[in-house]
């Protein structure tokens, strides 16, 4: 990568991460009224768009930067647990979706990438909750197991698919605006 592209890449990643943080600040609301700590937030949308534009590695960097900043600023009450949880959830999505979309650069590929990403994220979150929540919170493992099907799976599926859907709708126009900015990595191929 030439220095010029490197600088541009660095700034674009930073801006996407900043968007991820501020969207949480503007928009967040609980999905289930019964569990107020399970909130929907659109933080993942800029990260998914970044993944489609830069591939899985770029996506992972945005995820890392956004998670740390979000942990230090808006949602600092969840502390280190929140940072790590967010990183693993979004990170797993980004790797899977980025790899698939990198191979299949079409509208269909984008759909497959997002669906697989949401499924991976849900599986990772279930594993994380089963393994890590008892260690961090001391919740008995049976209690966590009991929450998997009614709470953890639907929450992650709903949040992931809403974010995936919005990404899918927004991506085309956004990628066009992106292409105008001189970073022409895949100029003609942007179809989805």
């Amino acid at each position: 990568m030439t220095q010029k592209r490197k600088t541009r890449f660095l700034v674009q990643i930073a801006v996407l991460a900043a968007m991820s943080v501020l969207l949480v600040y503007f928009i967040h609301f609980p999905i289930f009224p019964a569990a107020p700590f399970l909130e929907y937030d659109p933080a993942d949308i800029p990260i998914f768009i970044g993944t489609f534009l830069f591939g899985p590695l770029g996506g992972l960097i945005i995820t890392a930067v956004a998670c740390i900043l979000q942990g230090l600023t808006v949602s600092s009450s969840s502390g280190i647990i929140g940072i790590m949880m967010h990183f693993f959830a979004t990170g797993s999505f980004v790797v899977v979706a980025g790899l698939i979309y990198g191979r299949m650069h079409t509208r269909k590929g984008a759909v497959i990438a997002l669906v697989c990403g949401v499924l991976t994220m849900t599986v990772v979150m279930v594993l994380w909750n089963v393994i890590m929540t008892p260690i961090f919170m001391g919740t008995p493992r049976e209690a966590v197991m009991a929450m998997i099907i009614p709470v953890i799976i639907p929450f992650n599926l709903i949040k992931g698919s809403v974010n995936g859907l919005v990404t899918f709708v927004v991506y085309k126009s956004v990628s066009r605006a992106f292409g105008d900015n001189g970073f022409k990595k895949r100029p003609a191929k942007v179809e989805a």
Partner: protein
Amino acid sequence: MFKDITIGQFYPTDSVIHRLDPRTKIIFTLVYIILLFVINNLWGYLFATAFLVFVVIASKIPVSYVLRGLKALVFIILLTMILNMFMTPGTVIAQWGFIQITIEGLRVSIYMAFRLILLVAGTSIMTLATSPIDLTDGMESCMKVVPLLKRVAHELAMMMSIALRFIPTLMEETDKIMKAQKARGADFETGNLIARAKALIPILVPLFVSAFRRADELATAMEARCYRGGENRTRMNQLQFEKRDAVSFVGMSVLTALLIGSRYLTWPMPFPFG
């Protein structure tokens, strides 16, 4: 209205804790988090709490600020306490029908509440007493000693600083876009999840376009000033360890010894812990 918003919870005053080197605070917080998982009895938790109270007093941050961060967690803390109390097997001390409380359950639930509160309060003191820019600077020099992160430390810290600098700008932009769309009759506050997600689209598209334009301008500006990455780059404010940092490292060693030592304390403990 968004010009003077402080993103994050940094509480600016002048105290010893604020003046500490950010690297010291980051290392200290990490050590403290690890130590919380080493503690296994009441005395350890009491030492850790006493230490935290001492830091809060030294930092001159109002206690209500620290507690505000915990408010979001009250529900989770209560939930874990209840789950632990009723679901841990052991010696039964109280029973109604199929619900039973065991000594072990009582003990575990109190320990876990302690651990969660200290974990969250400990990290939030670091963010309360350090400005985000100082934190990214500190993180850069901390990452420089980690083998895997060494080569990307500067770039990562640079991205974080740029992102932090962009948050207020983009916030103003978002606010402007939201008002513009509201003027056209858009509704962001009501409706179910799908309706709200749909309402996001007319905010996101212009926001992305303007964000990419700003990124482009900044990249050109950096380019014009010959930005070449971290090598040989000089700083306006060099981080420097002072005497107070040395003192706090000594304090950290004492705390570590105390908390590890507390595992072997055999002082008698009050009712549910004995």
